[in-house]
């Protein structure tokens, strides 16, 4: 039985996501953690595209891939940790969380292994949608019509957070 192209793309990008997520938490050098976030975001973008959410895919890349990750990298490069300053030990919390995550991943793989087929994998969440689904207009219309109040409130929240950050940074010690 031949697997469909979207299924293959989904499987590949999901594997890339999981592999790079594992790499992010297991690297000793934080710069490499940031480097491995790039394939993670690329994989997630691909999955967004498979789900017809093209606008979200673009925003994911612009905001996370472009802006936030660059800021992470910027801070890390400013500090520029030397090898002897990097900690070697794993504390308990990441260990427990990593084990839990690995167990969940194993569970998901087991489910698919029992089904014995990757056919129609993407149908699990992508249903038949009309052409405008996931585009700028279809996202903007509810945001600026039914959901306009929570949307604007969220922007107030963000402004408050920014002002708070500036205040904290400017505080005389």
């Amino acid at each position, binding site marked *: 039985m031949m697997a469909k192209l979207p299924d293959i793309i989904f499987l590949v990008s999901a594997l890339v996501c999981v592999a790079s997520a594992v790499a992010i938490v297991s690297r000793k050098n934080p710069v490499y953690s940031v480097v491995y976030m790039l394939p993670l975001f690329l994989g997630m973008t691909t999955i967004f595209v498979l789900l017809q959410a093209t*606008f979200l895919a673009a925003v994911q890349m*612009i905001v996370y891939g*472009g802006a936030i990750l660059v800021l992470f990298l910027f801070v890390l490069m400013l500090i520029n940790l030397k090898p002897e300053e990097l900690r070697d030990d794993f504390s308990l919390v990441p260990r427990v969380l990593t084990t839990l995550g690995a167990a969940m991943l194993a569970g998901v793989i087991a489910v698919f292994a029992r089904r014995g087929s990757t056919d129609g994998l993407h149908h699990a969440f992508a249903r038949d949608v009309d052409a405008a689904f996931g585009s700028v207009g279809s996202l903007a219309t509810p945001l600026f019509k039914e959901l306009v109040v929570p949307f604007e409130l969220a922007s107030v929240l963000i402004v408050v957070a920014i002002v708070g950050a500036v205040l904290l940074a400017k505080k005389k010690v």
Partner: protein
Amino acid sequence: MGWELYVLKAVAVLLIFGGVLSVVPFLVFFERKISAFIQDRVGPNRVGLAGPDSLLEAFGFRKGTRRVLGGWLQPLADVIKLFTKEALIPAHADRPLYLLAPLFAVLPPLLAFVVIPVGQDIVVSSGVLVKLQVADLHVGILFVLAVASLSAYGLAFGGWASNSKFPLLGGVRAMAQMVSYEVGMVLVILALVMSYDSVSLRDMVSRQAAGGTLLGIWDCDGDWIWGWGLFHQPLAFVLFAICALAENNRLPFDLPECESELVGGYHTEYSSMGFGMFFQGEYIAMMAMGGLLATMFLGGWHYPGYAWLNASDSLLVHLLAALIGLAVFGVKMLGFVFFAMWVRWTLPRFRWDQLMRVGWKGIIPLALANLVLTAALNLPAPAPAHEKPDRNLTAVTRDR
């Protein structure tokens, strides 16, 4: 969806990428010639002496004049030199990232060309339609922004992986600068999206050809150049050109490589094709910005008389119109590249604090003002609520 579609797409991709990559060495040559002209020097004039100049002389058209195109084979010599040079990797460099970084300098700007339309669809015969664009994504401009934001990594990785002080400073500067100017650029593009009512680059071009209300006030005809974004959004045009220079790290914004303080900035430790790829990436990015500028502000492939040529029934005339359109698009795109070179050899470099001040206190407030103004001027006339068409949704369904 048959295999022909994939073949057609592959051909389109090869044509666009191959075309862009083969133009780059000549851009380097022209940059050297233009800089020579501006500084009253001769520039490269040795390689390829038996070129167009000698031919002109042989046929008696010019005698004893300066050889304007004397060094026309210089790009080839440069490429051979870069390829055959030893590729040094510094002993303390972070090897994988050091090798990965030049790739990030070249790929993102190349990818931006995927969505830039270079001509209208040509109907070759009944039903067979050739699109002069690799992919007509309906997120259009957002895709360009998404891949453009990746190009900061080439500089950042290169700077960090070289593991030496000058490149690190160059990389840090590159990131801070690109994030800062991206904000302004996105705000400028947002105003354009508002006035064109679409994020698709193809829609933007056709909106400019359709004419409309200039600055939201005067009605204008689309046949002549008055429909172009340059006249609809003059402030946005200027701001975008400035941001484009800053995003490409061109002078007066070339703080990341800044020869006088940082030796070579992020590419100090690179030699051979590693450096060659950074160099190439800069020129490709310049062309991509030029293509974007031509698409959003200068009417894309449109020129006065285009509609008149296209009104004909003959396929040959249509092809001719498209061909002229392609050339016109190239001229508009390379016009920006020429502008960038002109600026490079005319203006001195900003100081770091000046650069940040221009970005955050100059461009961003102006872009915000432009955005508010555009929103106010483009407010749709109030219509009865029940028969108000949903402009965004209809635009999107048309795209598909």
